[in-house]
C-alpha cells in the first residue's frame, strides 16, 4: 500500500520534471510561435478587416501596434523567461490546445492542426502493433525459456543465449530495413512501406502490420526467453525446489507446478515492461522505417518537419503513457506476487 502511493506520487513528479526540461528548452521557440500567431491574428483583425478599410495605412499600423502590445501583455509574453517556463508548463499540464506548425490530422477531424489530436489518432496504431507483438512474443518465449532452463548449457540454451545477444546488439530499425529489403523487394511477400494504406480500414492495416509484427517478435523473443530462463534457473536453485525433487516429483511437474507459478509475476512484468520501454525508445525509428502510422512515425515526421509543438506534445503524452503503464504493471506485479502484497 505504502509503496503504491509512493509510486503514484512519482508520476506527477516525473511528469513535472520532464515538462520543465522540455519547456525550458523550447521556451524561446514557443515564444516565436506565439508571436507568429499574434501577427496572424492582427493581420486578420486589423489589416484585412473591412471595418478599417478606409483608414490610412499609417493609422492601421498604429492600431496594429497597439493591439500587438495588448496581446503580448494578455498572453504574458513580456514576462521574464522563468515565469514563462511555468506558464507554458502549466498550459501543457492542463492540456491547453496547442497547434502544429505543419502537420495535420488524417483520421480524426482530418486537417486539424490540433497537436493533441494529431498525437491521439496515432496512439491506437502503436498500441495495436506492440500489444500484438507482445502476446505472440510471450507465447513463444515461455516454452522456449522452459526448454532452455530444463537443460542449462544445452543446445536450446545456447541458441537462446546467442539469439538474445544478437537481438540486443542490433538496432531494431536496422533489422526492419533488412526485413523490408528481403520480404518486400527481394521476395515480394509483403507490401512495402511505400504501399498506400487506408489507415481507417482494419484489413489493409492488418496486411501492413504483418512484417512489423514479425520483426518485433523476432527481436524480442530471444531476449525475453533468455530472461525467463534466468528467472527460472534462479528459482530452480531454491530450497523448496530441492525439496520437491527430493520428494521424487518428475522434473516436468516441478517446472510447471512449482517454478512457473513463482516465476509468473516477474516474467509478465518483464515482458510487458520491456515492450513499453521499447515503445518510447527504439520503436520510434522502427515505425518510421516501416512507415507505420503510429507515434514513432509521428516523431520522425515532426522532427523532419521541425514541428516543435507536435514534438512537445508527443514527448509529453508518451511520457505520460509510459508512466501510467509502468504504474499499472507495478500494481499487476503486486497482485500476481503474494510475497510483495504481504510486505
Amino acid at each position, binding site marked *: 500500500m505504502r509503496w503504491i502511493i509512493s509510486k503514484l506520487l*512519482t508520476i506527477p513528479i516525473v511528469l513535472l520534471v520532464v515538462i520543465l526540461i522540455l519547456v525550458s528548452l523550447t521556451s524561446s521557440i514557443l515564444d516565436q510561435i506565439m508571436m507568429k500567431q499574434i501577427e496572424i491574428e492582427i493581420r486578420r483583425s486589423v489589416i484585412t478587416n473591412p471595418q478599417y478599410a478606409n483608414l490610412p495605412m499609417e493609422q492601421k499600423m498604429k492600431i496594429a501596434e497597439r493591439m500587438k502590445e495588448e496581446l503580448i501583455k494578455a498572453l504574458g509574453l513580456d514576462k521574464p523567461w522563468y515565469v514563462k517556463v511555468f506558464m507554458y508548463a502549466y498550459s501543457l499540464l492542463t492540456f491547453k490546445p496547442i497547434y502544429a506548425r505543419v502537420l495535420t490530422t488524417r483520421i480524426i477531424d482530418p486537417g486539424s492542426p490540433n497537436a493533441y489530436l494529431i498525437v491521439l489518432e496515432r496512439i491506437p496504431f502503436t498500441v495495436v502493433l506492440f500489444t500484438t507483438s507482445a502476446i505472440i512474443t510471450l507465447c513463444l518465449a515461455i516454452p522456449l525459456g522452459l526448454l532452455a532452463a530444463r537443460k542449462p548449457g544445452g543446445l536450446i540454451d545456447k541458441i537462446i543465449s546467442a539469439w538474445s545477444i*544478437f537481438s540486443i*546488439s542490433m*538496432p531494431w530499425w536496422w533489422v526492419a*530495413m533488412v526485413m*523490408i529489403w528481403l520480404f518486400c523487394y527481394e521476395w515480394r511477400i509483403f507490401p512495402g512501406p511505400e504501399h498506400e494504406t487506408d489507415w481507417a480500414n482494419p484489413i489493409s492495416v492488418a496486411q501492413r502490420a504483418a512484417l512489423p509484427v514479425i520483426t518485433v517478435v523476432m527481436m524480442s523473443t530471444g531476449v525475453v526467453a533468455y530472461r525467463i530462463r534466468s528467472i527460472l534457473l534462479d528459482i530452480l536453485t531454491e530450497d523448496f525446489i530441492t525439496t520437491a525433487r527430493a520428494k521424487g516429483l518428475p522434473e516436468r511437474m516441478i517446472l510447471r507446478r512449482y517454478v512457473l507459478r513463482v516465476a509468473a509475476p516477474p516474467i509478465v512484468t518483464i515482458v510487458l515492461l520491456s515492450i513499453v520501454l521499447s515503445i518510447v525508445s*527504439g520503436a*520510434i525509428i522502427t515505425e518510421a522505417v516501416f512507415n507505420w502510422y503510429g507515434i514513432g512515425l509521428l516523431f520522425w515526421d515532426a522532427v523532419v518537419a521541425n514541428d516543435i509543438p507536435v514534438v512537445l506534445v508527443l*514527448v509529453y503524452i508518451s511520457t505520460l503513457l509510459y508512466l501510467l503503464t509502468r504504474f499499472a504493471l507495478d500494481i499487476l506485479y503486486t497482485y500476481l506476487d503474494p510475497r510483495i502484497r504481504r510486505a
Partner: protein
Amino acid sequence: MSAAEILREIWRCWTGRIALILLIIQLCLAVWVVVSTDYAALSRKYLDETAWLGEYPRAVPPCWAVPHHADIIQLKLNTSTMKPEIVEKRQVGRYTRYVVKWSYQFEYKGHALPSDTLLLLVVKRLPDLKAYKLEVKLLRPDNSTVAILAKTPITKEYVVVVGIGGAKGKPKPVALNTLPSDDPVYRSIVDSVSPLIGDEKLLTELGPGKLLWAGRGGKALLGTYEISVVASFYVKGQPSSDTNLSKYTSVYLEMQTLGNCYGLMGTDSVGRPIELGILIGLPWSFVISFYVTFLTTMIGGFYGILAAFASGWRAELLMRIADTVYSIPLLPILIVVVIVTRSYSIWLILTTMVALLWVGPVVVVRSMALQIKSQPYIEAAKAIGASNARILFRYVLPQILPYLVALMVLGIPDPIIIEAALAFLGLSDPTVPTWGKMLEWAWKEHAVLNGWWWSFLFPGLALTVFCATFLMLGRALEPIVAPKLKSR
C-alpha cells in the same frame, strides 16, 4: 582475483573466447586507422558527398557478390603522341580542309556491364583554325557505332568538352550517368544505342555510362572496340606534306570504366567504399560507448553506494531522485535537446545520455552495497575504528568494482545504438562519421528500395558485431565477478 586470472576464466568459455578475439581485432583496427592514416582529413572527406565523384563506382555491390566482373578499361589518349590518320586533305578556296582521325583499339573482356563510365575530353586548338568541329565515336564489336560526341563546333582555344572544372586547375573526368538527361553527350549516346536496345525503360535505367558497352537486351558486348576522335578544320594556305598536325590541335581523352563491384563491401550511392566507412566509424564507436558507459557506471555506482550508506530520509530522497530520472524516457528527450539547441555536437549528445543513463546501475549497486554493508566484517571494521571513507574504499568498493566493470561492459551497446538512432533521424554531429550516419545515408538514398543491400547491411552488421562483442564479454564476465551466479 587478478586480471590475468579473470582473463583466463573468460577464455575458458567459448563466448568469452570469441568475444576476446573480436575485441582484439576491433581494437587493433581502430588503432591502426587512427595511427596509420590522416584520420581527421579522411573522415572529413568521408563526410563530404561531393569529394568522391569518379573515384570509385557508385552504388556497386561487393565483388564477391557479383558473378561476372566488368572490365576496367582505362584509356588516356593524347593525340599529340598518336599517329593521326588523315581522312581528308583538300583545298577549299584559300583554305585547306583537314579531317583527321586518331583511333585506338582495345578489348573489352568483362562479362558484365561496368557501373558507369568516366570521360574527360579536352581540346586545344590554334586560334586561326576555322570551322573546327570535333566528333568522338566508339566502334563496337557488333559493328555498331556509338557517337559519344556528335559533331560539335569548338570555338575556343582550350575547351573542356566533357569533364568537370578546367578554367582553373586540372579538369576531372565526369561520370556519364551523372550527366543530366538533356546533356548533348547523354543524348548522343542514348540516341545512337536506342535502335539496338529498343526498350525505353532499359535505356534510362542503364544510362549512357553503361549503354556504351551494352548490346541487345542490355548485355555486355565483348570484343574489340575502337574509339576514334575525328577533328575537322580549315587551315589557311595550301595543303602541305607536313604530317605534324599536333601543332594545329590536340585532343586529350580520358576514359575509364567503373567496375560493377567494389572491394569487400561495395560502395554507396555517391561512391564511398562501405568498408572505409566502417573502418572510419570504428574509433568513434569506441569513443562514444566508452565515454558514456564509463561515466554512467562510475556515477551510478558511486550514487548506489551512497544511497546504501545514507540513512533515513536521505536514502529515501536519493532513491526517489534515481527513480524519477529512471522514469524519464531517453530518446524523446535527446531528440528535443538536439532539435532545440540546434547544436549537433556529439559531446552534447553524449553528455545528455550520461545525464539520463547514470541511473542504470544504481539499484543493483545499492542492493549489493547493502548486502556487503550488513556483513559482519564491516561491523568488525567499524569496531576497530575504521572511518566511513576507509570502509567505503577499502572494503565495499573492492567488492563492487569488478561487478561495475561487468555492468560497464554489458552497457556498451546502449549508447552506440542510441547514437545510431539519433543519426538515423538526422540529428547527429555532422563532423563525426558513425555507422548510424551510414545507415541514414542508405535510407535517404532509398538503398532498401533500390536493393543496394550492401550499403545498409554492412554498417548494421558492424554495429551488431561491435555490440555483441561486449555483450558476450559481459556474459562471460558476469559469473566470475558475481560468484553467486556461477552455480547457474
